[in-house]
């Protein structure tokens, strides 16, 4: 049934529908409401799980490593500084091949202190071995939650995953959403049957010492598992669509790209605003379309090549910056196309940093810039821009 709900409540309810055995979360703005709703579900008896109160994000993920290794389905959620504090534990979870699922609420990283949204936090853990999917709206976060359990727990994958959602913009919005039916969730998400479990009767070691003769092989196997996830993400999306009637296009989604000369590439909640901007610009005769990245890790190289091959110009819009060299999605996309015959100019825009609002006006300006690149070609100064900087600072 569709009804208006707060984003955080809707996400907590989607988690409830996945029946986690152990939930361990530490509250931090703007993720706090998710924690509050989950603990309320547990207190009300609506969610039967072990709910662990912890002292930090480091502890929340560490406790889930133990729980997951013992065969439990596990959940956590964090944001920004919390994710940063988890950094070494993220690598432990993925290295031990534990299918933990996390809702990463996207927020800027200090300093200066900012509680507002950008995506520096999740881009900062890009290489941690976790599967990373980005959602456009609350419904997509909800729908991805059981899908991520299905993907992470697959014996061929066994990799933790996170769905990234923009802080405040999606956690605090009230909008109509379709609540998940726990019985239907069971159809796409079978009970967790772990391949390896900690068991006193059959002792095993997880995450033990690996000397140089074995470490490379562990990384290789992780790398191969994420490659296999490329296929599974699309399959599970289709399966979800057959069961729930909502599909999202798999690894990427496209919007009005068929005859597009200017292709915008982006991810997260800004995609909704871009779609409205594309409609407006199309009315003015500007051939612009959108490629929405859903899966960032694994990175859908082949799918992207196909989606970008006919564009005259590509503009990447993302809410992160790699101080010292451009930004993460931009350089990944350029890398994906370099060894191909696709020679489309690509420019990048780091926008919406630290909660700076990105409205229709800003998207128009980015399209104007991309248009200029289409006509005049790409120069170093137009290749990458930290967008919307106060002129006094330039």
């Amino acid at each position, binding site marked *: 049934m569709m*009804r*208006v709900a*707060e984003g955080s409540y809707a996400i907590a309810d989607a988690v409830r529908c996945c029946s986690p055995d152990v939930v361990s979360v530490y509250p931090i703005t*703007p993720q706090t409401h998710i924690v509050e709703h989950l603990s309320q579900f547990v207190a009300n008896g609506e969610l039967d799980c072990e709910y662990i109160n912890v002292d930090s994000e480091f502890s929340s993920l560490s406790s889930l490593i133990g729980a997951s290794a013992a065969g439990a389905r596990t959940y956590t959620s964090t944001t920004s500084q919390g994710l940063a504090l988890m950094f070494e534990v993220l690598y432990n979870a993925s290295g031990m091949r534990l299918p933990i699922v996390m809702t990463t609420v996207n927020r800027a990283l200090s300093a200066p202190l900012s*509680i*507002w*949204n950008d995506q520096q936090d999740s881009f900062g853990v890009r290489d941690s071995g976790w599967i990373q999917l980005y959602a456009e*709206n609350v419904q997509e976060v909800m729908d991805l939650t059981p899908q991520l359990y299905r993907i992470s727990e697959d014996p061929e994958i066994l990799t933790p995953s996170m769905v990234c959602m923009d802080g*405040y*913009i999606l956690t*605090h*919005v*009230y*909008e*109509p959403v379709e609540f998940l039916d726990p019985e239907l969730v069971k159809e796409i998400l079978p009970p967790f049957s772990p391949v390896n479990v900690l068991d006193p009767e059959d002792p095993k070691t997880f995450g033990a010492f690996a000397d140089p003769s074995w470490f490379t092989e562990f990384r290789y196997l992780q790398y191969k598992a994420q490659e296999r996830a490329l296929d599974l993400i699309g399959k599970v999306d289709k399966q979800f669509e057959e069961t729930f009637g909502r599909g999202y296009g798999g690894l990427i989604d496209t919007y009005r790209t068929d005859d597009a000369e200017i292709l915008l590439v982006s991810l997260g*909640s*800004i995609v*909704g*605003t871009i*779609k*409205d901007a594309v409609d407006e610009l199309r009315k003015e005769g500007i051939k612009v379309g959108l490629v929405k990245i859903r899966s960032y890790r694994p990175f859908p190289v082949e799918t992207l090549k196909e989606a970008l091959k006919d564009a005259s110009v590509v503009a990447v819009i993302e809410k992160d910056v790699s101080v010292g060299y451009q930004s993460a999605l931009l350089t990944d996309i350029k890398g994906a196309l370099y060894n191909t015959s696709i020679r489309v100019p690509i420019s990048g825009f780091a926008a919406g940093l630290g*909660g700076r*609002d*990105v*409205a*229709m*006006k800003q998207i128009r300006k980015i399209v104007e810039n991309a248009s200029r690149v289409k006509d005049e070609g790409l120069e170093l100064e137009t290749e990458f821009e930290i967008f919307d900087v106060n002129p006094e600072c330039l």
Partner: protein
Amino acid sequence: MKEIRLHGRGGQGAVTAAELIAIAAFEDKKFSQAFPAFGVERRGAPVMAFARIADQPIRVRSQIYEPDYIIVQDVTLLEVVDVAGGLKPDGKIMINTDRPKEKLGLDTEAEIVTIDATMIALEELGRPIVNTTMLGAFCGATREIRLESMNKAILGRFTGALGEKNLKAIETAYERVSQ
């Protein structure tokens, strides 16, 4: 699509009012969206919240710069915030005040609707919390949301005697601006 901006002070329930607009609009079979101007608001500090109502699913997620309607819960905000900023000329601004609109010094071509919501709230609720009363004024002045749908949204949030009192406040405001 209709876009609404709400101005209040921390603790006056502007965010709750925006949420109630979203819930009531959905009752009217419309799509809706409500969100606060995210901040670290303290009690008494100027705050903003936003709502959108549309016939199609709402995709845009930016703040609202050119609203169709503006609700001002506290007239003292006029001294510190450009509350009418960006208001469409054919829009409406609803202000809680006992002063005549000509004396407010508002710079807008749009219609100004004044209502002494504080007095209504004191009479009906016994407290000067005007967010629901102003929703009654909004429904009456704009007819964007049916009063019954707003009432249903209110009862979903405030139960028992408090819910009933809020309905009376809303209906009083609705009648007053409808005259």
